[in-house]
């Protein structure tokens, strides 16, 4: 079976600083792959290469068998690459439902003329996608808040809206950038359950960048460890946990 994501030889530098060097990474269908490493290891650089914010100097990113290395971010989204963000990056003036609907942008067809006239074609499309958005809202248990402006919600709920917006894209791969940061134990447990459900019920593979080791070891099928822009370990959680290079990267030289 061919991999959903196949990254090879990825190299990225900023001036003299090497952010990523010869990074290889694969994600198979139905996998949850976690990306961990100390601060400055290159996790965010790798994720930004995947979403198209950074253009690597060398290497190739194959997504669903297609080379997306040179595509701008919005074209990658159209190809089925979904992502959530570090911190709060929702559309704060919009309601929860509008956030989810805006995630469906690439699947909707209505243009400016449809928008102005709001004739049956546009009206029907809007109703059809509202139905789909409601499914996602129900999945994330946000029904009570569908019309609440996101800017007024709590941190955990805004992060959940961010996830809902990414699901609106109906992604074939979901990148989650430190989704648990700043959450309390209950919010983390909720989110971990949602991530597992996304994989199990929707069949969407997930790449998770996360600092919370308990969560990472609990829900990942595979863990990839980065240090100084290089992959130093890649395997099952238990194998990675015992790897001496990983221990020394996290705890310093023994």
């Amino acid at each position: 079976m061919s991999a959903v994501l196949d990254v090879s030889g990825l190299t990225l530098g900023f001036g003299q600083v090497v952010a990523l060097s010869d990074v290889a990474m694969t994600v198979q269908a139905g996998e949850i792959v976690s990306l961990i490493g100390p601060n400055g290891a290159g996790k965010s650089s790798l994720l930004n290469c995947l979403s198209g914010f950074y253009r690597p100097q060398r290497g190739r990113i194959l997504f669903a068998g297609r080379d997306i290395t040179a595509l701008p971010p919005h074209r990658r989204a159209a190809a089925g690459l979904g992502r959530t963000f570090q911190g709060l990056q929702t559309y704060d003036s919009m309601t929860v439902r509008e956030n989810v609907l805006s995630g469906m942008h690439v699947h909707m067809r209505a243009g400016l003329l449809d928008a102005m006239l709001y004739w049956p074609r546009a009206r029907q499309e809007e109703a059809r996608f509202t139905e789909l958005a409601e499914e996602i809202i129900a999945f994330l248990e946000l029904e009570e808040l569908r019309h609440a402006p996101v800017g007024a919600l709590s941190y955990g709920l805004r992060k959940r809206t961010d996830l809902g917006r990414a699901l609106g894209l109906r992604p074939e791969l979901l990148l989650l950038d430190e989704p648990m940061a700043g959450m309390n134990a209950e919010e983390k447990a909720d989110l971990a359950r949602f991530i597992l459900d996304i994989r199990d019920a929707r069949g969407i593979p997930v790449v998770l960048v996360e600092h919370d080791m308990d969560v990472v070891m609990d829900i990942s099928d595979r863990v990839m460890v980065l240090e100084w822009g290089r992959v130093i370990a890649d395997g099952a959680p238990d194998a990675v946990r015992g790897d001496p290079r990983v221990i020394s990267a996290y705890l310093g030289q023994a």
Partner: protein
Amino acid sequence: MLPSGVFFTDHAAEAGLLRTLPQRLWLAALLAALVLLPLVAGAHLIGLLTMLCITAIAVLGLQITTGMAGQVNLGQSAFVGAGAFVAARLALAGLPLPLVLPLAGLAAAAGSVAFALPAMRVKGFYLALTTLAAQVMFPILIIRLPAAWFGGADGLGVDPPTVAGIRLGGATAMYLLCLGVLVVMATAAFNVGRSRAGRAFRAMRDNDNAARVLGIDPLRTKLAAFFAGAFFAGVAGALYAYQVRYVTTEQFTLWQSVWYVGMLLVGGMTQPLGAILGTLFVTLLQEMLRSAGGALLDADVGLQGGAIFAATNVLLGSVILAGLIFEPRGLAHRWGLVVAAYRIWPYPHR
């Protein structure tokens, strides 16, 4: 928020602009009153309201570009001017009004895209300055183009419009025409706000990086925002040309562009209702101060005309400033609070 007891069983009905019977009745009553107004109002008031409708259309366009999509535009008056000159030219060529209005709108929109395309690399203050350049270039362009096109420095005269063979010569006819076009354009603006394009605009404004990652093409979306906003400006310009019957570059100044932005700020940037309330408030305030100044001059209390003119402008500026300090989110936001308070009365909380 909706009054209690109003429920929907399908998404299309819930997305409606008017969702309750009282809303429909109130709007119908308001429109009927506006249509019947010429029977009782004087020519001066009708002329004022005609210009108000025209201005409101331009500000509605600015609400899309600047309010929804967050693209600062200090050149809206130039786009109104582009629409006015194209409309005058087409009307002179014998085209009927139902064709002239959309064509003038499209011409202004095309002009804005030609201008916005190179400006799309910059944001915020830099974009504001770039749109200022559109405002500066507009009169130069009109004057330097062959006089046979747009009349050069002399401008163009316009005949009254004909719709279906009927000549709309009178002030009342022009008022009803402009009111009708305003209703259509306002509906279009509200429609943009509740559809895919409007969400893409607001997504760009709220968080452009997130919008890109979620599949919204930044260049296309920004250009669409300028296109839509300038289309409104072009339609407003065409109506202006028919109303004033004469267009020159001096009518479409930077000063006017700044007023458009001021009206939008006072009314509230984030919703089309803000454009209408802001235009209404600022225009009526300007008019009241103008007539108060005139009365003061007639009363001959020993003040000179220049001093009165300056004083009324200072007062106008102060009222707008006070509005922005006490209600930075605009009159439309305040209106929303009033409606919500009315609906939850007598309870103080939802």
